[in-house]
């Protein structure tokens, strides 16, 4: 039955969205991580999705999702003048990553909604398949 491959598509999307949620969690968790050098500071990570074509079914290409790469944001670290901080450099500065927590939260909600949509599709497709199996048996 061709419909089973639908589960692969939806599953690929769910794992991609889950990875997006994971990067958001990582970004938020590290938003206060200090460092004595601007080069070693944590940088916000965001996944880039891409469509993956599956041509195993003749003429009916299926389009799932995969994470092409995880990109590190190119933002400058924010310097804080804290001479008493043990991590401070010679000039008395510590650095924190420039993570926009509001943007991260918005990203989280978007990922969560997309995940929910995919779950909904999965549930509906499963329901339709089960009903089809019951065809003529009443």
């Amino acid at each position: 039955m061709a419909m089973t491959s639908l589960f692969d598509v939806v599953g690929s999307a769910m794992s991609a969205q889950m990875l997006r949620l994971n990067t958001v969690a990582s970004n938020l968790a590290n938003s206060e991580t200090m460092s004595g050098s601007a080069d070693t500071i944590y940088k916000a990570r965001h996944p880039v999705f891409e469509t993956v074509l599956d041509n195993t079914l003749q003429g009916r290409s299926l389009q799932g999702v995969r994470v092409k790469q995880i990109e590190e944001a190119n933002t400058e670290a924010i310097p804080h003048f804290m001479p008493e901080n043990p991590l401070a450099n010679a000039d008395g500065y510590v650095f924190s990553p420039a993570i926009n927590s509001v943007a991260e939260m918005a990203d989280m909600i978007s990922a969560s909604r997309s995940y929910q949509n995919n779950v909904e599709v999965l549930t509906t497709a499963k329901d339709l398949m089960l009903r089809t199996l019951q065809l003529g048996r009443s």
Partner: protein
Amino acid sequence: MSVISFDKAFGNHDDALLLFERRTQLLSENIANSDTPGYKARDIDFNQVLQGVNDSLPLETTSAMHLNPVAEAPFGPVEYRIPSQSSADGNTVDMQQEQAAFAENTIRYQTSLMILSRRISGLVNAFKGE
């Protein structure tokens, strides 16, 4: 005495199930790719498929073994959606539109399924002759 033609008994509904299944797949791909940059949403134009079923003449068959392509599952051409709003990353999935289409397609599928189910139970009743 002729054998019962299941093709005639079921009408278009068995083909319709295949079409709706294909459409379920396409719409779920659209929903899965709602955040993929550059993805273009696709769909089947249901009315066009229906026209195709009604318009295309059946091939002349000279043997009972000949297959009739019109009677086979008619999948219309898969076409790209025209986006109502453009997005910066080139993605043309409009989630609301896709969800509405998915819901509509599910209802259509269930309707065809129900009609088929009723026809089958009708046939079964006829066989039993109760």
